[in-house]
């Protein structure tokens, strides 16, 4: 199996499994799923550091976009917490 097939298979297995695990715990927040996907994607990208530079550039770009999305989710959550009135 080539390194590219292994990379794709790893992503294709890890993401659905984590979805099933979160669904089993009745998680209903979409941002929780997205945050987990972003973390998993970044970790897998680091583990498969030897991908050809041409593909790596696109994968790194995707990683940057996902990470920005993750930061946006965190910012929205923090703003939400700060907006809540003090008990």
């Amino acid at each position: 199996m080539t390194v590219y097939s292994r990379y794709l298979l790893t992503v294709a297995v890890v993401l659905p499994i984590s979805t099933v695990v979160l669904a089993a715990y009745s998680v209903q927040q979409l941002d929780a799923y997205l945050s987990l996907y972003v973390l998993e994607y970044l970790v897998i990208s680091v583990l498969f550091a030897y991908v050809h530079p041409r593909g790596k550039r696109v994968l790194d770009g995707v990683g940057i976009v996902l990470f920005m999305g993750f930061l946006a989710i965190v910012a929205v959550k923090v703003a939400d917490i700060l907006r809540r009135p003090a008990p």
Partner: protein
Amino acid sequence: MMTSQTRYVWLGVGLLVGGAIFSLAAWLVVESVPLVALGLAAILIGIVALALSRALPAIPPEASGVLLQTGLENLSALLEEIGLTTPALYLPSRLARGKPLALIPLSASGSDPSIQGPLPDRLIVSYGRRGELGLLVRTAGTTVAQLLDERPGPSTGELESAIGAALVGRLDLARGVHVYRDGERFVAEVDDPRLGRQDLWATRSLGSPLASIVAALVAEGTDQPVAMRSEDWQRRQVVIVLELVRDGL
């Protein structure tokens, strides 16, 4: 006939479109957050497949293997005609026409060749204090070294990274690489090699193509001539031992 690249593209596009439709349906019809997330996961996997389609080699591995085999057999025929089996010395680009080449001494002297300076751009060159002669040849490592984005560094970490990028990332010839240093010796452990030892005359001087690539990259990274001391082919690993040969400059 669909190539691997085309398969990845179709898979990526299929997952992107399918994932988008699935997410939309899950959101509007079923109103299930886990299913929407699953659709988004499919979109992400589709993007990865499309990105990887750009990383696949343009030349099929079988074609590359044919070219390598042909080149090796031609070199083997030349060396066999001369009856040459002396071990090669892998030279960094500084000493050999701007490319990492291998010097095969025409006569065995019992010790490693001593390079007195950059060698000329010729096949048969004189390299020693006493005017010893040798063949200056390109190896698989010569071409591989030029594929890398930047020159490897001299530390074991940098060499491991460069050899891994070449053998695992670019050429997909192995699953992993580990490099250790013991004084002037470098030990490279290549896991699950996909290129065999190749029983050809040229390998008596140059080593196997895999070892040749490793030696060329180590020579280029350390900027010193490198001699191959041993190659140990085990069940799922090949252990290559190299030694720096300080040049006579």
